[in-house]
């Protein structure tokens, strides 16, 4: 164990001191910043939309009547007529036929309630900017109404705060913001796991080939067991990957907090970036950042488990492949059958997004070669039964132990073999050597 530690230390320090590591560590958060920048910019320069917002002049009009013309809509009051339910149904029918009309359904005044729900009905799916503008104006209206009617000061009002949930309903399928964020976080995690395994597995293989080409490996294995060398290297690279990830996280947070005030400032001064035909909606940009905060980050707890499991599984096989050859070109024959199952889950994603708890998703998230890329995605997308997660982790752990065992056997023979490239048949024979 002691010797694994010595090898671990050298390999780890050797990697994190490399220019390529530092470059990647600092460039990715900058990329993240650029991405937010682009998103914010694209949100800032959205084209103005033009809806008629239908509001019924019933008893709730004391609140809703306070909503005035917005950037994306104008208010069209409707006289209250006859039965409330009949009128609501006829309005629902009406907006289904008229694409440019939106009906705000606000059922009561909610004077004392903390959770207020209202619904926007439309024929087509509404954009977030329209939904948010209505939400903002409605929120303002409720606050004003409460202040005026109850006579409480604004200060007190903050204490009796409320949550407004403005839902949208249309003829089309709705994806709530939280669903989109869940997908982004789940798929993001899975893809990062895929990338880290592919990149660091490749680095591990390259390191093994280098030690063999340098002819230093026989010197080392006369002092330590080949298994200790393999483990030291694998653990070191796994730690480097996690170090990089933590640094990415921290730096991204720094970038985020640096960018926040700029985004907010843009909202205060709308005249600054006025362009013909385009309208500024800076609060839209703010909302994107707020959405990031609100996403379901629980999946991150599973990240280390699935990353490490996948890395040991694929990394050990890549190391075994590297040990069998003298140079990186010869390695290709062996890496293709390894990288294929690593990439395959990327092609399963459409199916899994469609039905994250279906049979296909369930089966593939238990196959150890796929689970590191699929299970985090499913966890991000919604509720996976706990036993499925436990089972997939157990299968993954057992499989990577098996892979490490087989790889170590190939590795200890491979590193001492020079000359012609071995066939798969020969490599199978190595498994029997002592």
């Amino acid at each position, binding site marked *: 164990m002691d*010797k694994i530690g*010595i*090898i671990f230390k*050298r390999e780890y320090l*050797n990697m994190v001191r490399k220019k390529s590591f530092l470059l990647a560590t600092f460039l990715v958060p900058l990329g993240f910043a650029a991405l937010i920048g682009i998103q914010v910019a694209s949100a800032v320069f959205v084209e103005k939309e033009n809806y008629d917002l239908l509001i019924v002049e019933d008893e709730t009009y004391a609140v809703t009547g306070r909503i005035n013309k917005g950037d994306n809509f104008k208010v069209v009051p409707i006289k209250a007529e006859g039965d409330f339910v009949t009128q609501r149904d006829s309005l629902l029918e009406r907006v289904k036929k008229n694409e440019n009309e939106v009906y705000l359904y606000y059922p009561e005044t909610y004077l004392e309630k903390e959770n207020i729900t209202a619904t926007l009905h439309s024929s087509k799916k509404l954009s977030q900017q329209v939904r948010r503008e209505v939400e903002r104006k409605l929120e303002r209206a409720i606050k004003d109404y409460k202040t005026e009617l109850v006579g409480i000061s604004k200060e007190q009002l903050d204490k009796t705060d409320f949550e407004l949930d403005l839902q949208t309903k249309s003829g089309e399928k709705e994806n709530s913001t939280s669903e989109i964020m869940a997908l982004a976080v789940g798929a993001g995690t899975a893809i990062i796991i895929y990338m880290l395994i592919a990149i660091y597995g490749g680095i591990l293989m390259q390191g093994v080939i280098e030690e063999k080409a*340098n*002819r*230093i490996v*026989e*010197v*080392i*294995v*006369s*002092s*330590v067991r*080949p298994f200790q060398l393999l483990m030291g290297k694998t653990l070191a690279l796994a730690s480097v990957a996690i170090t990089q990830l933590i640094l990415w996280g921290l730096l991204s947070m720094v970038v985020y907090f640096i960018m926040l005030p700029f985004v907010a400032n843009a909202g205060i001064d709308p005249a600054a970036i006025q362009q013909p035909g385009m309208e500024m909606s800076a609060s839209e940009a703010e909302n994107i950042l707020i959405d990031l905060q609100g996403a379901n980050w629980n999946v991150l707890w599973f990240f280390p488990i699935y990353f490490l499991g996948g890395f040991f599984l694929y990394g050990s096989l890549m190391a075994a492949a590297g040990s069998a050859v003298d140079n990186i070109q010869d390695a290709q024959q062996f890496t293709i059958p390894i990288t294929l199952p690593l990439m395959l889950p990327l092609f399963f994603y459409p199916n899994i997004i469609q039905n994250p708890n279906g049979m296909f998703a369930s089966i593939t998230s238990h196959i150890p070669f796929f689970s590191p890329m699929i299970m985090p995605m499913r966890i991000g997308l919604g509720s996976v039964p706990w036993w499925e997660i436990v089972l997939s982790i157990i299968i993954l752990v057992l499989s990577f132990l098996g892979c490490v065992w087989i790889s170590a056997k190939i590795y200890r*023979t491979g590193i*001492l*073999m*020079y000359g012609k490239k071995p066939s798969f048949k020969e490599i199978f*024979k190595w498994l029997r*050597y*002592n």
Partner: protein
Amino acid sequence: MNETFLRIDNVSKAYDDYLAVNQVSLNIPKGKIYGLLGPNGAGKTSTIRMITRITVPDSGTIYFNGEELAEKHSRDTGYMPEERGLYKKMKVLEQITYLLSLKGLPTSEAKAAGEEWLERLGLTDWSSNKVTDLSKGMQQKVQFISTIAHKPRLLILDEPFSGLDPVNTKLIEKEIFRLKDEGTTIIFSTHRMEQVEELCDYIALMSQGKLMLENEITQVRKDFQKQVYHISFHGDKQHLMAVPGLQVLEVTDKQAKVELSGGEGDRNDLLRRLADSPLEILSFALHLPRLNEIFIELVGGNKNLNRKETV
């Protein structure tokens, strides 16, 4: 025979159907230089890899100073493989320290030992340079330092002089003798006979996985002594051919190498017969066999020299 430091007892090792080492027993005496000889594919490297615990024997046992070979003996072993190298981008002292600490030396001791040896071999100024900055000769010195700086009791050198220039060869030779004087047991594997004659006290000869002979080098020479003589002469070489009881092995106009057919007692008889011939004999000397000849005699010429070395 001297006290045995490393004993290899009836060891075999097979790869697939290929028997690399076939029931070999060796007794390597303490504080001596022991030459392990043989053509490529004789099983030298396979034997050494079992001594360094890189592989384990299929059968048989290896005893290190009386104890069965185990993990802890790696601390007392220094091994310079034929296929050797260093991390190209690592600094010299860092590299030596790392390799020594893998042997089980505490980092501070490893560093001190490395510094001491760099000083001795005149490389102190290069301590914090990367290995790639060094000349080939300097790299080989660094390699040698990382093999011996932890004061191993058993030192195994597989073709240590391959790729060394004459200056460094002399330098390393000097250090090898010094280590021997300090009591280090040294196994020296090579197929270059002139180096063996210069360095070794004992030799073992392997061929096709089997041990052909093992003995003190002086004894080996005696054992293979034959009735072969060098003669230099004046006169027609045809007269030499006519001398009875004599087989001419090689002949030029002035010199010949001849073998006496018959026993030792006939040497004076041969001299007499030569004196009787019309030739003027200038010198007459016993031929001492070179190891190379013994080697070829035992392994049967070149027919197996090209066998591919596996593992």
